[in-house]
């Protein structure tokens, strides 16, 4: 890929982030603020001496433990962010190509030296690789605020803070796991990404209704025509167990990405994404 193509792609990614700041930045900031407000409210309900006792217990508990061993537990704090990213991704993917046609900006972008393939790929990269970076940075900001608060609390109550330092290191390690999990989830759910993009490029109105309606219809058609339920089985086997795409230890990354199910999902997702790329030529 030459330098001009890279610059084009960078510009497309920047456009996605700027046009969807609410999804990439606004939503996780709101979640972080809500969590901080909730934590502050809980702290005000607890007696100061009990709070100091709890902090002392936590400090002793984590003192000397390996951050990589604790990181999976710290990941639980990121569940609200993970769910927010999931919901925001669905909203983004189902609206992005539809919105381009609705506001006729598709005509402008097609007059520019960028192909439909580059545009669609930029949207996928934006939501699978770039959006998790913003989420992780905002979680990091939240951890920093929490750590400063715990440090001040510890110093004012004469608590040994070595264990809190280990807790912070574990939180940093968990950020890497959260990012990798988000990216692997994006790859694992690439067929869903392709499906939403296909109907975002196809529908003249209500793309979400089209995507859901055709999904159900195709399942019925398979049962009706072939008498089989491979589509339903496939969907069930990809969505029933979060352990298939959540990463809790660094050693399992390679195994999760380079296994048959993930790679086959990428192939199926590519078929639907190719459909979305071709569909983008119909701008009416």
């Amino acid at each position: 890929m030459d330098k001009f193509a890279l610059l084009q792609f960078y510009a497309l990614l920047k456009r996605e982030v700027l046009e969807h700041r609410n999804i990439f930045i606004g939503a996780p900031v709101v979640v972080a603020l809500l969590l901080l407000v909730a934590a502050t409210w809980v702290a005000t309900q607890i007696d100061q001496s009990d709070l100091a006792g709890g902090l002392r217990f936590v400090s002793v508990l984590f003192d000397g433990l390996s951050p990589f061993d604790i990181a999976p537990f710290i990941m639980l704090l990121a569940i609200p962010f993970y769910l927010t990213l999931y919901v925001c991704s669905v909203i983004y993917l189902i609206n992005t190509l539809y919105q381009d046609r609705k506001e006729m900006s598709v005509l402008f972008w097609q007059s520019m030296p960028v192909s439909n393939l580059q545009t669609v790929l930029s949207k996928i990269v934006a939501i699978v690789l770039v959006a998790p970076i913003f989420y992780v940075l905002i979680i990091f900001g939240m951890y920093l605020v929490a750590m400063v608060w715990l440090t001040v609390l510890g110093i004012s109550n004469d608590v040994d803070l070595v264990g809190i330092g280990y807790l912070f290191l574990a939180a940093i390690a968990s950020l890497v796991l959260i990012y990798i999990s988000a990216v692997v989830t994006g790859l694992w759910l690439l067929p869903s990404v392709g499906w939403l993009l296909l109907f975002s490029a196809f529908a003249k109105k209500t793309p979400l209704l089209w995507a859901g309606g055709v999904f159900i219809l195709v399942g019925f058609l398979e049962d009706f025509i072939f008498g089989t339920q491979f589509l339903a089985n496939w969907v069930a086997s990809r969505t029933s167990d979060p352990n298939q795409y959540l990463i809790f230890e660094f050693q399992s990354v390679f195994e999760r990405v380079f296994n048959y199910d993930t790679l086959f999902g990428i192939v199926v997702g590519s078929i639907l994404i190719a459909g979305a790329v071709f569909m983008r030529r119909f701008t009416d």
Partner: protein
Amino acid sequence: MKNLLLRNRYTLLVVTLIVYMGVLVTEGMITGREARGIEFENPYFDFNSTDFEGFRQRRSDSENENIRVEFDGTGDV
């Protein structure tokens, strides 16, 4: 052929869905794919989402067992 496939958005959608279904059904037939359900096993109940009928059956058996134990406890039966 290309003109036929790309004639309008509807033909393109149908072609994409046919390819999608074809690949999934073929792969399903080759690998004999079955739904991978959620399974819980613990001392209180066993649950397998692919065998929901079995779960209902076991639950109803267990409820009958409890009723029998309650009757036995009263000493009236």
